[in-house]
């Protein structure tokens, strides 16, 4: 009997007796004989807990994590400081082992936390409504495009080439299978080319998608793109970074209709890529087009303020093939993490994080250039990430760095053939001057 299973042999006998069967196998007779497994699965024998821990530690130790590497890599996943308290709260059984809050009476914990999450996302973006989370920023961008296509009844999306290549790849998958066309807007100096955007915009375009800070870290002229969209009655979809929003204009301020982003930087570990979390927020108009769960405030039969899943008529379990999206489970615990992160950090804290990312990335760029190992590139104002051209080749630089315990920048060669040997460096508030100086010293 396995330690995770509490039914003893005596129990089994009593239960079978009650059911009127003489063996458990009799309960499986509905399975046609020919497909009943005759042998054990080819899976190793079960193990004890100490054995498990040993195996997993060996496995973990075969990786060099950013616990030991000094991380200058970003490109969609960010090494921000995670307050110790978060883990303790998020791992409370009450949050961790509950399901989606279908029964509001015994799920107010989760429901209120999501309500607070939504409130924070709305405040960060300036937009009217947020949902309870999506899988990641890439699928969130796809969902945003669907909203735009539905709202405009148009079948074409313009997306900047300065948008994270992974986001664009997922977007392509989602749009092509929904028979929506995508066209890319060209780059100029690591930013989206406004003229090219104008040129490609017309009344067939459902939405223009621009990311800011974009994949290269560049802060885009969002207002301009938003105006192009407006001029064509297309929606403007902003892909934004939640930490940068502490200091940069909100999507609402520049007239975005939809904002999406990656909330991983808000207290979620990098986790080798997941679970992360995508957020989405929209203007009033698009509320009923939002995908996934939404929590709303209401009162109970005694007039007490409380929270429920609401506007469910959009969702798959009610609307089935006509739902706004197929999403069911989302990234609730990551949303809780982000909510706790924002509560601990507060407005001042988030601004401080953003300020330090700025200061340190500017300092790093300047110092890296001083090593003379890089050529400067023309890049407008950036946030947290910037591009440099490695004189000796990107691979060589990164190998050298790795040998010195430093996780180097992202090599743009594969995604942007025109930026061969260009490295995208990321410097968060976690990096100290000393670490940045060491990076430069290794490369001097």
């Amino acid at each position, binding site marked *: 009997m396995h330690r995770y299973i509490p039914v003893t042999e005596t129990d089994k006998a009593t239960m079978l007796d009650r059911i009127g069967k003489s063996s458990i196998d009799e309960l499986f007779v509905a399975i046609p004989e020919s497909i009943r497994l005759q042998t054990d699965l080819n899976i190793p024998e079960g193990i004890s807990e100490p054995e498990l821990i040993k195996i997993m530690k060996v496995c973990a130790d075969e990786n060099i994590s950013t616990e030991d590497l000094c991380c200058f890599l970003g490109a969609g996943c960010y090494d921000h400081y995670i307050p110790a308290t978060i883990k303790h709260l998020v791992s409370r059984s009450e949050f961790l082992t509950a399901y989606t809050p279908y029964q509001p009476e015994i799920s107010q914990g989760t429901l209120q936390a999501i309500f607070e999450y939504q409130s924070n996302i709305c405040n960060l973006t300036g937009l009217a409504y947020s949902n309870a989370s999506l899988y990641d920023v890439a699928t969130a961008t796809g969902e945003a495009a669907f909203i735009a296509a539905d709202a405009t009844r148009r079948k074409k999306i313009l997306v900047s080439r300065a948008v994270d290549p992974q986001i664009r790849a997922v977007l392509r998958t989602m749009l092509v299978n929904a028979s929506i066309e995508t066209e890319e807007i060209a780059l100029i100096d690591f930013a989206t080319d406004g003229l090219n955007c104008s040129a490609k915009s017309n009344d067939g375009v459902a939405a223009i998608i621009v990311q800011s800070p974009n994949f290269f870290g560049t802060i885009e002229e969002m207002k301009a793109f938003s105006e192009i969209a407006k001029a064509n009655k297309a929606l403007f979809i902003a892909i934004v970074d939640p930490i940068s929003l502490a200091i940069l204009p909100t999507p609402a301020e520049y007239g975005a209709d939809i904002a999406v982003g990656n909330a991983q930087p808000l207290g979620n570990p990098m986790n080798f890529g997941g679970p992360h979390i995508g957020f989405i927020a929209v203007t009033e108009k698009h509320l009923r087009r939002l995908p996934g769960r939404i929590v709303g405030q209401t009162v109970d039969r005694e007039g007490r303020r409380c929270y429920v899943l609401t506007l469910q008529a959009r969702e798959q379990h009610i609307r089935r093939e006509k739902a706004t999206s197929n999403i069911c489970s989302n990234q609730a615990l990551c949303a809780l993490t982000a909510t706790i992160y924002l509560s601990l950090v507060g407005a001042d804290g988030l601004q401080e994080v953003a300020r330090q990312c700025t200061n340190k990335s500017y300092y790093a760029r300047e110092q890296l250039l001083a090593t003379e190992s890089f050529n400067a590139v023309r890049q407008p104002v950036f946030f947290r990430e910037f591009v440099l051209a490695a004189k000796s080749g990107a691979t060589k630089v*990164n190998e050298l760095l790795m040998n010195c315990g430093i996780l180097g920048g992202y090599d743009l060669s594969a995604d942007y053939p025109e930026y061969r040997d260009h490295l995208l460096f990321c410097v968060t508030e976690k990096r100290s001057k000393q670490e940045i100086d060491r990076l430069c010293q290794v490369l001097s």
Partner: protein
Amino acid sequence: MHYDKLIFELSATGKSGYAIPKCDVRDIVLTKLAKTLRNSPLMLPCVSEAECVRHFTNLSTQNHNVDSGFYPLGSCTMKYNPRVNEDVAMLNGFSMLHPLQPANSCQGILRLLYELQCCLAEITGMDAVTLAPAAGAHGEYTGLLIIKKYHEQRKDNNRRKIIVPDSAHGTNPASAAVAGFDVVVIKSTPDGGVDLDELKAALSDEVAGLMLTNPSTLGLFEEKILEIAALVHAAGGLLYYDGANMNAIMGKTRPGDMGFDVIHLNLHKTFSAPHGGGGPGSGPVGVKSFLTDYLPLPQLIKTEDEYYEFIVDLPQSIGRIKNFYGNVAVLIKAYAYILTLGAAGLREASEIAVLNANYLKELLRNDYQLAVNKECMHEVVFAGLADKNSGVTTLDVAKRLIDYGYHPPTIYFPMIVEQAMMFEPTETESKTALDEFAAAMLKIAREAKETPEIFKNAPYTAPVSRPDEVAAARKPVLKYSGA
């Protein structure tokens, strides 16, 4: 005392629960760089660390959860979530890995993920597995795109339709729609199985495939599965398996052997990863070998010299479906679970899950109306109270269960059963737990007869009771907007 404050209501300027080292490089005057900066007020909560801890601790206590009580939510497999799996998933050597690290710096996690792919393929009887999808519905979507791609590659361009039984979970038709298919709904037999005549009538050269879960959403094994598979295949369609109910059959039978071509699993159900109040989940997709080329990007492979790496150079792939590769922390927990149980343990889990469901069925069948009078698999569906005269609905019973300290079953699903109550006890509940739960259910049935009026206001013991959902939807208040 019902704690009901919002974190924003604790906020006051000047308080903070956070400090990082002072900035040790010079200040950039951002206004000199960026033309505009944020203009709107940043209204994040400002609280001390202690206040933050207290707030979320208090919120948490308002949740029912597996660690504190029985949670027989059907179709959700609310089994025990082993704590050691949380520990191993949080090891720095995993949680602090950047997804874009060079492969030679993360062979450990790549090997783990690869081995998990192999285990899942073995358990389901498939040939290749992708771990990329973030949840069950995402898995469905991914699987359907693979089916689509398969037909496309064969230039079989008319196959626009996906057949979905009316008993299916809502994500099935929704995923098919998002994947660009037309959904054809077929009626089920009274016992929730596939109606072969309906199926035959629906099949044609326009059909890309059939989505099915087996055991069905009524908790019954589809006995005609081989016939169904033959029919669909004969019509040129593929068979998709919704793995939400996999907890019934581990080590007993395999979807791959039943004839399914594409499957997804819910690791946050069958494989013990916690649900986290609604996610993150993980919905790996398995395929038969002829579909391998269509799997999403990236694919994780093992080279001949035992080196693990992602490949993206797969022209026939459906493309990327998510940032990076899967919800890794969830995947680690599922892998730890499989290692811990092993072949025999997995089979035992399914056997006891089925035993428990059948036992519960027996305990309840006199007072609640069985949807189908047959041996069930891992879950059992009732059509409300046996006595239909009291006016007490399934919703009433569910709410009243809360007063007895239980999470209600899944209700009003599957939709083809009126007043449906779907109980899934899982294998991690003891006989005593089931006996006590059944006793509460019988008491409620008696209450329905004797004092039906008490139901309208149930629950009485929860922090809140019967929230006004209509008001919530009519005048949506979806965020805090000041005192």
